[in-house]
């Protein structure tokens, strides 16, 4: 596992704080991610139910379980990177470098880095229905930057692909600059997005 310093934004006052980006989390780390996040998820569900918030407005990754990824960590193709601040995992991402190829015409058939899961800690979600404000922000952008850098390191020239939850679609298009390719019936009918070399270079500028 390697580590590097990274700055994240404290949402309450906009101040930058020094966090750490870890690449190549081990099984024990991923178990800790789920232990830290799982109890918070349960509390969020309790509050959402208590406030009679319609399920369609609940955070769509509320049911995720990061411990399900532990068995894949022995593969070189699967990597988990995450951001830690004050011994709490603030955000995490799983990438897969072998099982997906580009679909956009400009990169059809070429290897891409597939972002399998990316999520911020539940305390970093903005959930106005129950009055929850996020603690830190900008974490998604930082992990997507890291994904692009990993793609370049693998020789994929920044090419990425991912399926997005509906609540996150605008983030990938408007903030990251990815291209939507439509719904994929083989992946929970989620919309699929790709980032080209040119888009990756533009994003990193």
């Amino acid at each position, binding site marked *: 596992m390697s580590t590097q310093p990274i700055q994240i934004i404290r949402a309450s006052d906009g101040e930058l704080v020094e966090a750490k980006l870890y690449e190549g989390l081990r099984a024990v780390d991923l178990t800790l991610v789920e232990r830290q996040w799982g109890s918070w998820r349960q509390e969020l569900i309790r509050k959402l139910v208590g406030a009679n918030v319609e399920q369609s407005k609940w955070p769509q990754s509320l049911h995720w379980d990061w411990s399900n990824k532990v068995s894949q960590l022995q593969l070189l193709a699967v990597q988990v990177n995450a951001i830690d601040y004050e011994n709490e995992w603030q955000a995490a991402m799983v990438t897969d470098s072998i099982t997906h190829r580009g679909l956009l015409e400009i990169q059809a058939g070429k*290897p891409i880095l597939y972002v399998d899961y990316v999520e911020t800690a539940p305390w970093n979600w903005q959930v106005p229905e129950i009055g929850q404000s996020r603690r830190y922000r900008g974490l998604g952008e930082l992990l997507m930057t890291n994904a692009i850098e990993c793609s370049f390191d693998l020789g994929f020239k920044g090419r990425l692909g991912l399926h997005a939850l509906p609540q996150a679609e605008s983030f990938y298009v408007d903030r990251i600059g990815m291209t939507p390719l439509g719904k994929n019936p083989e992946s929970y009918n989620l919309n699929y997005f790709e980032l080209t070399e040119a888009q990756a270079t533009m994003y990193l500028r």
Partner: protein
Amino acid sequence: MAEKRTMTLNLTDSEMAVLEELAESKDLTKTAVIRQAIRLFQLVEHRIANGEKLFFENKKKKTSELMVL
């Protein structure tokens, strides 16, 4: 990013020709092709070791098992 080590790779002309062809068609460097090959080999070995089988399917949906030695 993880630190990398350097090695010398000795290939025949035909192996080098295939490596160059793959690098060209996949828009990768030759080093990146080898790194991908290692990842793919490990993935296949891992799944077969876990009792899974590897199949290819043609356009007529006919499948054939690939025996990996």
